[in-house]
């Protein structure tokens, strides 16, 4: 049943070297995520959960260990190869939303597709469909700062879905939101999961983590429960 694993991390170790002092942040992480799962990674700050998410998101590379993403070995890739996989296979949702203020909501959602080369009409239709799906059908041409925090995060979720990624990585998606908006955002992630999307979410809020199918706790660079 290996084919159903979207993520397979084996003995992932991550060292940071600064001023010739080596600090080990991850001490050997083993983790598999099945297709269609919704998992939450939680742990205190400094536990290594962000580093783990960066490695899963191919924004960072493990010092040693093996990483299979969607049946492809992505352990050792060049920067541009990583960029390519990020573009195709991973949808990011950040704590800070990270929308470009200068361009419209619609253009923000389209952003991942311009690096894919999807034709203009297709990607625009897709972006509109996604925005409608997250409840922002009336806000295509607004600028991000004309929207509330919760709405901005929903734009970011629509953007993460633009290239039909294998997984959605959400890094503290509710961290900058009030409880109500936070719940809405988690609700959308749950809906997406029900429609078949694999979601990996980092959170330090127990109440948010509980809503995932599986909660993984990291402490001092190791997974303490499965």
């Amino acid at each position, binding site marked *: 049943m290996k084919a159903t694993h979207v993520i397979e991390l084996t003995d992932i170790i991550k060292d940071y070297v600064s001023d010739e002092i080596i600090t080990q942040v991850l001490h050997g992480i083993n983790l598999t995520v099945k297709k269609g799962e919704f998992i939450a990674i939680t742990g205190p700050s400094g536990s290594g959960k962000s580093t783990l998410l*960066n490695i899963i*998101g191919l*924004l*960072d590379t493990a010092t040693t260990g093996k990483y299979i993403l969607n049946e492809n070995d992505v352990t050792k890739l060049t*920067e*541009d190869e990583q*960029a*390519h996989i*990020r*573009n*195709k296979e991973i949808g*990011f949702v*950040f704590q800070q939303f*990270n929308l*470009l203020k*200068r*361009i419209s909501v619609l253009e923000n959602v389209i*952003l*991942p597709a*311009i*690096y*894919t*080369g999807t034709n203009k009409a297709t990607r625009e239709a897709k972006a509109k469909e996604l925005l409608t799906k997250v409840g922002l059908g009336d806000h295509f041409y607004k600028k991000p700062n004309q929207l509330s925090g919760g709405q901005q995060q929903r734009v970011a979720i629509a*953007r993460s879905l633009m*290239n039909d990624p294998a997984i959605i990585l959400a890094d503290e998606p509710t961290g900058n939101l009030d409880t109500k908006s936070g719940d809405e955002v988690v609700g959308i992630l749950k809906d997406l999961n029900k429609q078949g999307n694999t979601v990996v979410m980092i959170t330090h809020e127990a109440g948010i983590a509980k809503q995932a199918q599986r909660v993984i706790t990291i402490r001092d660079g190791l997974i303490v429960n499965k």
Partner: protein
Amino acid sequence: MDTRELFKLALGSLRANKLRSALTTLGIIIGVFSVILLVALGNGLQAYITNQIAGLGSNILFVLPGKVGGTQGPGEGVNKLTFSNVKYFEERMKSIAVTSPLVSKIGTVKYMNKSNDNTNIWGTSSDFPEIIKTEVEKGTFFTKTQETSASKVTVIGSTVVENLFPNTDPIGKKITISGGRYTVIGVSASKGSSFGQDQDNTIVIPVTAARKQFSIDLANSIYLSANSPELVDLVKKRANEVLLTRLDEEDFTIMTQEQTLETVNNITGVLTLALGGIAAISLVVGGIGVMNIMLVSVTERTKEIGLRKALGAKRKDILLQFLLEAVMLSLLGGLIGILLGLGASAVLAAFFFATVTPWSVILAFGFSMAVGVIFGIAPAIRASRLSPIEALRYE
């Protein structure tokens, strides 16, 4: 990412900072503008001088005292063009060339209570108009007989006419030249001014009369006109041989029109280059402005770069985005600068001299594009090398 997308991106961010983009562009505009204008000025000057010299005729030669390119320049040191030497020279050259010595003085010319200052007083032979085209508008030039007899007659330029004879016909009137009384027998046609010097503020008298008037026995130069353009080289060779029988190598210089043109072209060429070079410095300064603003832009947009990378932008995508922005800034400046430069050159050409050469426009355009690439590449590389994690964390 396709090209159109890239252009849209670059344009978008330039538009987002309109004032900043405009000011940065201004640096390039001024640079390109001054390159075009100053090079046009230099070329105009060159064309003008070349025309002036060519207008004299292609079979003209000059003998100047002293050695050009020697330790002493022409006119420096001892002038050995005495009139006995001139006479000896003229007799041996007359079969192949028309000759005329030139004595030139600057002095005041008076008629009644009016006077004309800083007049060029030229003493020449009666053949002078044959050598340097001189059109006599009214009256006549002096004759060989008048020359031989050292007649006190003169042909005056239009400026002298304006100042001394505003309302009267000058022909037949007696004017005072440095104390001597001369009869006006002709008025030469206006030649205009060149380099701020009025060419019409001139009077010509027989060289014989000039020698007596100023008690001098030295010619400032000898003008020759070969009987045909093909004879110029022969005349030069002969003149050299003849002069060497009386003078030393370093006592004289023979210049042909071609040499004169060459010398002048060398000088104006260097001048044009120098002008263009100075202007190019401002273009480089403009380029530094582009680089500066692009570095600021990269720093300011660190987070955007991080996000784009996270979403799948490759190094090349980021590099091209920033490079294109820099190139667009400088190309826009280049285009505006070219238009302004062409306009200003046209205005200048109306009452001075300015010739826009295609190469200066092409060069300015190419240069402004190169400035964009050269000064844009460093910031663009810096942007493309940012680590996405670091960049996303940047506040």
